[in-house]
């Protein structure tokens, strides 16, 4: 069996002195959408931040296609093919949509324009607003800019931190179906979601974290069908 695209092996770490993650392990294989769910403060976002080098790692290893990438700089991680969409502050509000996309390709020497064209095909509403400042867009459109910006470098794996947070239910569905489309185009996704049920519906597998530890992992369909999981983690 070939190595998973992304792997967290027994990762512990945190921000200050105290650890938030206590030996979290998870994998993302080619073609998969993997969702991390769990109660508030379980370390879901921290797990994603650990991958992108934003967390102090005290032990364990993060591997991309089998290679250890623990502790690499942001620039190197992007160069290796990891893209990250933070939950908040994920667009440059005073820059136009197009400039946001252009800067998404900052680390690449290739011409960014053809790729931006592909992004506009993926998100038609952005094409109409390419000259508009990103800060003036609706929440859903802004999320499209954020995801589009992350896709500019043609990532090998996409990290989404609560992409539907703060969006109206209609936009939540839109963003999740966009995630599903991106995945169908061949990009594996590791996603943290508060809307666990909807997220699992588009996911292949799910992990449930509690107190910075793995609690449960299974196929998304299995997690959705389990009554105990539904009651404890999916809001009944």
């Amino acid at each position, binding site marked *: 069996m070939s190595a998973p695209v992304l792997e967290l092996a027994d990762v512990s770490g945190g921000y200050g002195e105290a650890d938030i993650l206590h030996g979290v392990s998870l994998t993302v294989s080619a073609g998969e959408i993997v969702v991390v769910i769990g109660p508030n403060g379980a370390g879901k976002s921290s797990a994603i931040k650990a991958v992108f080098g934003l967390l102090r790692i005290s032990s364990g290893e993060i591997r991309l296609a089998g290679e250890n990438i623990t502790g690499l700089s942001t620039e190197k991680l992007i160069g290796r093919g990891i893209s990250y969409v*933070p939950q908040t502050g994920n667009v*440059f509000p005073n820059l136009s949509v197009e400039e946001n996309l252009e*800067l998404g390709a900052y680390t690449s020497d290739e011409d960014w324009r053809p790729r931006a064209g592909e992004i506009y095909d993926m998100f038609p509403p952005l094409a109409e607003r390419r000259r508009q400042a990103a800060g003036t867009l609706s929440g859903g459109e802004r999320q499209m800019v954020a995801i589009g910006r992350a896709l500019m470098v043609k990532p090998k794996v996409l990290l989404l931190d609560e992409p539907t947070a703060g969006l109206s239910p209609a936009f939540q569905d839109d963003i999740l179906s966009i995630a599903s489309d991106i995945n169908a185009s061949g990009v594996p996704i590791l996603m943290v979601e508060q809307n666990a049920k909807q997220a699992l519906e588009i996911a292949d597998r799910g992990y449930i974290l509690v107190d910075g530890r793995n609690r449960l992992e299974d196929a998304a369909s299995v997690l959705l069908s389990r009554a105990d999981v539904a009651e404890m983690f999916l809001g009944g």
Partner: protein
Amino acid sequence: MYEFVNFYLIPGLVLGSIYALGAIGVSMLFSILRFAHFAHGDMMTLAAYLALPVVVGLGLHPLAGAAAAALMTSVVALGIDKVGYQPVRARPTIVSAMVSLGIALMIRSAIQVGYGVKTQSYTTGQITPPLRFDWLIVQERHIWIIASSMVLMLAVHLLLSRTRAGKAMRAMSDSAELAQLTGIPTERVVRLTWVVGASLAAVAGVFAAWDTFLQTMLGWFLLLPIFAATILGGIGRPYGAMIGGLVIGLAEELSTYPWLGTEPLISPGYKTGVAFAIMVAILIFRPHGLFKGRVF
């Protein structure tokens, strides 16, 4: 009419151009490093003195002196950033502001030790007659100062709107955190900001000295109107700073025009007070500056 244009409007535009060049740098440095750069005025003084050997020694045109000073001042600014600001970058930005105050004093003292405190001039003795176009009388240097300031402002505009480096600067001004997550090398953007800010300040300093004379308090006296211009344009907005600079420069000169009767409206001795009054008024009534909306 001709009096108004020749003795008030043109000098106002000259002064405004000098303020604008300084204010663009203050505004950019604030938007990217998030601190008020109090050493900006003394950086201008330093540039004026650095140009002295080029203009007086080599006998070159003051514009050549300005270019040379821009280069040298940029190097100095990068050096100061390395030893002065970089070590405290992670600390609250008030620390950087205080460092800049100390650096302002150090630059000024170094100039006083190096060049002495006597006033000096780029033009030793000879007086160049002004150009006359019918009733319009204008000093040749005033044309150079206004024209080159316009060119530099256009260059800043092109940098910010057309180049990847300029867009990275604007991105960092929007969100330094996201800029870093996008893989933008933030320290390199900071260095570029210093080079742009220091170069513009250097040119402004040489222009100010060219229009008057060199003295070690030259830039320090320019600092207040430059901050007024920066605040007027909205702190962190280079385009606002351009307008702000011109408005403050014009306001200072036009306030001494005999609008009512034959006496100056405000005695020329109180010119700086005009900039200060505008700054206070803006801080009270429009603390975000004159312009709403886009930052830059």
